[in-house]
């Protein structure tokens, strides 16, 4: 047990050091922006990984919660006069409640059926955001008021780098801890075999729902952070393609690996930026890299590479 605590602490400490040291090598605020995007995507992916990697359930509509978080901080202050920070909490609450209500019936489904049901949820939320233009500004999106905390106006790529980095650290810490709690163990039991989990007394329905709600809240907070950071939001962030992107990050990085989600996000966010030099071939190369990664690292980047390193170390 002691060893486990230490390992978690080391992972977290390394992440903190990476976040703190990276800026020393950044020549311009563009790099801060890209890094902040990595932290935000990673936060959403860590949440989704709790659902997919730990509890073994699929969600193809996760961007819906990302969108709810983003639009909560856009609509709250603009239309309802709620302070931005309260809108952030409200968005997280709304996502959690929605996940709870919707999760109860749909988490009874399995495999493809669950995938389709979550897909439907995602499409529905995106549809509402796109058509309720009186509230959401429609398909062209709407501006978001800047976040102010105790009179401090949070804006600029530098500031957001630290804010999102901090959020990621907290999110990582919670996810790492969760893995070692009875709840986390119940999740993994679910992942391996639902029947076996039920037999040993795990309340399957309750834990699935819990994982879904946790994942929704992570996504919602990440969405709020992105909306504040951009000062602008449009329905793409709640759309199907974004859901797919989140799933890709989780699978690419490694199912069930918290660090994997961060690495997956880093790859998927920075790769398109690095590939712009290839111009027309950008999308082709991006697709190729992901396919090759998935063929040769079937368990995801982090689990596959660490197994490889482990084998090397032994031989």
């Amino acid at each position, binding site marked *: 047990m002691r060893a486990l605590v230490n*390992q978690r602490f*080391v*992972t977290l400490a*390394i*992440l903190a050091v*990476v976040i703190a040291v*990276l800026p020393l*090598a950044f*020549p*311009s*605020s*563009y*790099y801060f*922006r*890209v*890094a902040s*995007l*990595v932290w935000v995507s990673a936060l959403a992916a860590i949440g989704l990984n709790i659902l997919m990697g730990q509890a073994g359930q699929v969600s193809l509509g996760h961007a819906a919660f990302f969108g709810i978080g983003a639009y909560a901080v856009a609509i709250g202050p603009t239309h309802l006069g709620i302070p931005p920070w309260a809108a952030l909490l409200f968005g997280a609450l709304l996502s959690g409640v929605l996940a709870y209500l919707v999760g109860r019936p749909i988490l009874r489904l399995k495999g493809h059926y669950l995938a389709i049901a979550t897909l439907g949820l995602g499409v529905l939320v995106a549809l509402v955001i*796109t*058509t309720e*233009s009186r509230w959401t500004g*429609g*398909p*062209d*999106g709407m*501006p978001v008021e800047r976040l102010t905390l105790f009179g401090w106006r949070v804006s600029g*790529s530098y500031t957001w780098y630290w804010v999102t980095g901090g959020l990621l650290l907290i999110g990582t810490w919670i996810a790492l801890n969760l893995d070692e709690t009875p709840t986390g163990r119940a999740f993994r039991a679910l992942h391996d075999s639902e029947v076996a989990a039920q037999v040993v007394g795990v309340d399957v329905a309750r834990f699935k729902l819990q994982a879904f709600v946790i994942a929704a809240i992570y996504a919602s907070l990440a969405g709020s952070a*992105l909306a504040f950071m*951009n*000062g*602008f939001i*449009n329905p*793409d*962030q709640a759309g199907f393609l974004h859901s797919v992107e989140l799933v890709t990050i989780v699978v690419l990085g490694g199912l069930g*690996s918290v*660090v994997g989600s*961060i*690495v997956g996000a*880093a*790859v998927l966010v*920075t790769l*398109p*930026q*690095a590939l*712009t*030099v290839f111009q027309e071939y*950008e*999308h082709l190369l991006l697709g190729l890299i992901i396919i090759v990664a998935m063929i040769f690292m079937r368990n995801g*980047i*982090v*689990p596959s*590479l*660490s*197994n490889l*390193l*482990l084998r090397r*170390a032994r031989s």
Partner: protein
Amino acid sequence: MNAKATHTILLATSLMGLALSHGALAQDTVKIGSVLSVTGPSSFLGEPEDKTLKLYVDKINAAGGVAGKKIELVIYDDGGDANKARTFATRLIEDDEVIAMVGGTTTGSTMAMIPVFEDAKVPFISLAGAIEVIDPVRKFVFKTPHTDKMACEKIFEDLKKRNLTKIGMISGTDGFGASMRAQCVKVAPNYGMQILIDENYGPRDSDMTAQLTKIKNTAGVQAVVNPGFGQGPAIVTRNYAQLGMTNIPFYQSHGVASKSFIDLAGPAAEGVRLPAAALLVGDKLPESDPQKKVVTEYRQAYEGATKQPVSTFGGHAYDGLFILVEAMKRANSTDPQKIRDEIEKTKGFVGTGGIVNMSATDHLGLDLSAFRMLEIKGGDWNLVASGS
């Protein structure tokens, strides 16, 4: 999983992040940036823009550049994603250090990028349609395409001439359709227009007969207006003919002003009217038309280089680039602030979209004369003689 290995990977990836390449800045070039939706759902807009910019920057450089400096064009493809556009905008400003930007294919991506350019005080000439881009006026933001409000006004002007005042509307729920619909509803009373029925359809719908039947059954509708772009309007046009509604005058928007609309809608497009830039009817303009020379030259250059029919969208990029280049010449400087001031002073610039006269309160500079009312006849665009 071994924690040590995991940690090594975490460190390795963070190092990878630092490996993003970094170009050196040459002394005798100036950088102009562009973020376009070359791929994705808006690629039919972004692609001609991309080709036009590349074509003309090469031409300008071959002729010696601007004020003795060669232009280096930096184009990024946002794939129609506003969040990506925002990141690329930051990259243009912070990393490439461009002195100005001509780009922003869609209204969504333009709106997402505006704060970046406003903060950095770098001029941004947008290629997006909606009026929100320049209203309210932002110091560093300009645009070249006609606004959707102008399109509504042009249509209503034509309707008024024909003594038609009771109309039905059917609009797409995409950004373009929704925005233009709102503008039409807003300016309708100014022209004495009464909107009897207001229907809409999703951008990916494949049949609009239900909505059109409702319009057909609404008593008193004298004309139908269809704000929208992409394939939606082509389907509406086909359904319109199928329902035998062609005796009711039908108006499309400038959003369908490309040859592919006529191809998609087929014979059903006969008799459809729409406001569009002079570019589409360049060869039919009278010799006395001030835009004749510009539009025929652009058309020849574009079609010669790309072997594709010209569209007004590429024309917007042409206008944006040359408004910028002329401002740079007048400013005789690469200081973004000075270039901005000169862009705002653009007067009598003859572009493919019309004659541009900008001012501190008008960052578009086009009036209704920039739009020509066209009618589709014999599978081609034809100018509607004024008064008919």
